């Protein structure tokens, strides 16, 4: 038997004439953690779907050799039977079923045919959860009562329940905060020690260089190179160079000649309660100010209340018992509906573009003009078709949405291009103040760069831009100033060179200690 547990040779997969994978080769050693890197649309997920049998044998060419034996999987069940288990980016848990039921979903512990053995289910679920560091969890509670981080770990427990030898994790930390991510990475190292081979797909290069033994880089459906720990240069720059095919000397474009003007956006004494629980205060006495031409960050851990702050300001879209004042261009405004917020030139680019930003079944044009339709694209309620076409075409070119027509449905675009459409949608409302919530989540390095350029352009045009981001380098790279938010309060404010990861974390820690004392 060779040293490789898995060899994928000359894999080619087409979608109606377009090659998603073009002669891809991948070799994974027994017991290592292999990372697959590439821009969105490079073919990473397609490759994993080929491996796990989502695309059955015959739909691709090339062969898969697993443990020395050539495999022709026809569906996921067959690959799972061999111990290849894939955990997709979107969690596949059934929210109202218990933890134990979820762990063995599709793989139930049975007494006889079709009858579930509840004792075995619970006992073994507890054992599996202990292996992923959740030994203390109650296996009887519905899975939706747990946080995303724990749910991700339950997914892994579920995979272990299927006797996984080769575990594939597609963007496992995309929805996790830093602490949960770190926990997950440690778990991966533990699993490795137990002899389980892992393939991880991730955009977070710092995580990859920490955890991976080797990195395979895919670009445009082709394998570019495989780097090995200890042999090759594992730096983020090296990985990015392979991914984009050029060196991105600066991941954050410089903003030059951008004068900062007067305060045009001001939020004072902002208090908001949880939408389902009027006694639980989510935001406490928040005060922020943003100047024209300024890019201001809202840094903080996930769940700190940043999105809640943005959405409660934006047309009271979140929470109840909202008090406090909002001033735009020096004038106090009452923004109790989204339309009013739009009318007062406030825009909010939401964090989850698929759920909150886009109508995926409709065209680029439809989506781009949706928010501005009432104010800029219609007269007496009748839509001006040609103006719509002209303006969306203009924005398609301006922010470089890669598509052959603005009539293409948004759902068929890659994440980065979808994000550009959402940005265009809000730029078309001619806002003075833009709140961008995780503007680059889950998109590739090249598209990120383009989005940062758009942010700079907006600042130069004298807009006030607020960037909410969980990636601290992004806050550091794009913002003039940042507020640090923790547990619904402003924990600190940092300016210019003061903004460092250490300083942000220090603010959060100090605020946490203060909370414990009082």
């Amino acid at each position: 038997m060779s040293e490789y547990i898995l060899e994928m040779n000359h894999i080619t997969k087409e979608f109606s004439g377009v090659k998603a994978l073009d002669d891809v080769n991948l070799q994974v050693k027994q017991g290592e953690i292999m990372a697959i890197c590439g821009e969105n649309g490079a073919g990473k997920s397609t490759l994993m779907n080929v491996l796990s049998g989502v695309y059955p044998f015959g739909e691709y060419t090339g062969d898969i050799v697993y443990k020395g034996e050539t495999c022709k999987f026809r569906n996921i069940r067959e690959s799972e039977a061999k111990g290849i288990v894939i955990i997709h980016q979107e969690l596949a848990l059934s929210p109202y079923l218990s933890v134990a039921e979820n762990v063995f979903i599709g793989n139930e512990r049975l007494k006889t045919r079709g009858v579930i053995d509840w004792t075995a289910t619970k006992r073994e679920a507890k054992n599996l959860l202990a292996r992923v560091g959740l030994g203390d969890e109650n296996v009887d509670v519905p899975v939706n009562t747990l946080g995303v981080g724990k749910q991700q770990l339950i997914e892994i427990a579920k995979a272990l329940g299927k006797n996984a030898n080769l575990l594939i994790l597609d963007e496992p930390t995309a929805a996790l905060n830093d602490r949960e991510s770190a926990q997950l990475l440690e778990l991966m190292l533990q699993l490795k020690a137990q002899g389980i081979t892992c393939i991880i797909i991730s955009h977070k290069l710092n995580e990859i260089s920490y955890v991976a033994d080797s990195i395979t880089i895919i670009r445009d459906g082709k394998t570019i190179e495989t780097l090995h720990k200890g042999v090759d240069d594992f730096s983020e720059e090296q990985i990015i160079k392979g991914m984009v095919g050029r060196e991105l000397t600066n991941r954050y474009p410089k903003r030059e000649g951008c004068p900062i003007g007067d305060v045009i956006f001001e939020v004072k004494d902002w208090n908001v309660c949880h939408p389902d629980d009027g006694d639980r205060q989510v935001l406490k006495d928040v005060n922020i100010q943003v100047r024209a031409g300024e890019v201001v960050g809202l840094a903080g851990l996930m769940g700190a209340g940043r999105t809640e702050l943005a959405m409660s300001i934006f047309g009271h879209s979140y929470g109840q018992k909202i008090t406090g004042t909002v001033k735009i261009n020096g004038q106090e405004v009452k923004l109790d509906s989204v339309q009013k917020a739009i009318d007062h030139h406030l825009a909010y680019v939401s964090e989850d573009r698929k759920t909150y930003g886009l109508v995926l079944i409709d065209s680029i044009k439809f989506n781009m003009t949706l928010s501005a339709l009432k104010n800029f694209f219609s007269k007496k309620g009748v839509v001006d078709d040609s103006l719509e076409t002209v303006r969306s075409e203009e924005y398609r070119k301006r922010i470089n949405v890669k598509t052959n027509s603005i009539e293409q449905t948004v759902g068929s675009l890659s994440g980065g291009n979808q994000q550009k459409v959402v940005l265009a949608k809000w730029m078309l409302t001619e806002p003075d103040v833009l709140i961008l919530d995780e503007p680059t989540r889950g998109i590739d390095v090249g598209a990120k760069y383009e989005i940062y350029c758009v942010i700079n352009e907006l600042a130069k045009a004298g807009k006030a831009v607020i960037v909410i981001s969980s990636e601290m380098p992004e806050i550091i790279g794009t913002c003039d100033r940042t507020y640090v938010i923790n547990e619904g309060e402003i924990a600190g404010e940092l300016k210019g060179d003061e903004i460092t990861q250490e300083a942000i974390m220090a603010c959060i820690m100090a605020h946490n200690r203060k909370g414990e004392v009082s």
Partner: protein
Amino acid sequence: MSKVETKETAGAQTLKKPQLNMKQYGMVIMLIVVYVFFAILTGGKNMTPMNINNLIMQNGYVVILAVGMLLCVLTGNVDLGVGSVVAACGAVAGTLLMDFGVSAPVAMLGALAVGAAFGVFVGFFVSKLEIPPFIVTLATMLMGRGLCYVILKAQTKGPLPASYNWIGTGFLPTIRIMTDNPDLNKGKGIDLICLVVGAVICALIILAEIKSQHTAKKHNLPTIPLWQTVAKDAVILFIVGFFFWKLANYNGIPVVLILMAALVGIYHFITTKTVAGRQVYAMGGNAKAARLSGINTKKVFFWVYANMGLLAAVAGIVLSARNQSATPKAGDGFEMDAIASCYIGGAATSGGVGTIIGAVVGAFIMGILNNGMSLAGYDTNVQKIVKGCVLLGAVTFDLLSKRKKR
């Protein structure tokens, strides 16, 4: 490998030159096929001027309901109560006419008010209290039917006065041209107005096509090949011409046709050209995104259902006028016909997809099926089986072809 490459280049070419979207016209082709099939089966009985006229009069109310139902379907829901509301509105109009002796316009206003009240009632529960439309309209389905029996004391009211019945059975004034052929239209002559209206519509279609070609050129948008455009328009012009020629050979233009055409025109305009229409599509496609785009989704929901109530009243008036009576059993199962019309016409059950024209074509496919089978001597029970098969077949075909595309 070379095979693969040719495939790729072929793919690139089709992207450059868009073809006529056959899916869009698939329903029209299906309509023609079904019609021709029954023409052969019945030996041309369904092509007589009288039968063409009957097709309009019998399906008018289903078309009116389908137009309103499409908006509900666009939001991803349905309205189960329309059949009952149709009956209740007819019952109210009948009672006002027969027991209170009011004039026809007042009776119609009364029916419209009742329909609107039902619509507002559903709209309130659906939007303000956020009760699922399925439940609310299931309730109005029961309530409306019950109310109808109560108002009419379980009896049929009629005959209704002719001034009222005009809207369901009447015709526009005619100008007869006598021909040398005494057999043509039993010697009554051909209606000139019908022919003029048909000709004007044909001219408008041609003008609209020229205008759209012109704008496409101006903005440098891709256009479909000319022969396909010509073929498409030729088919449409032929249908329009055939249709009005037949009507000219009967009693002229039915009032119902005018009413129906006006409603279809208005709602087609609303759904394709107005902000309000766009909001319905956006909400059906992704309600959360629509809300964060400034759309008051509750308001949209309210108006969609309020509007459905009003259109159900219009259908109720037309139905009772055509039957010249109000009966408690009227409109039984109409909601299902209207819903089926939308789906046959290409609307998606998940919402956000569908057109008014599609729903109208869907309604006529069902109408032609009913009519053709009646003429061929099949009873209503067999008709139901066939209608069920057609609905299932149309939606299955639609979904499978979408899946293949991906």
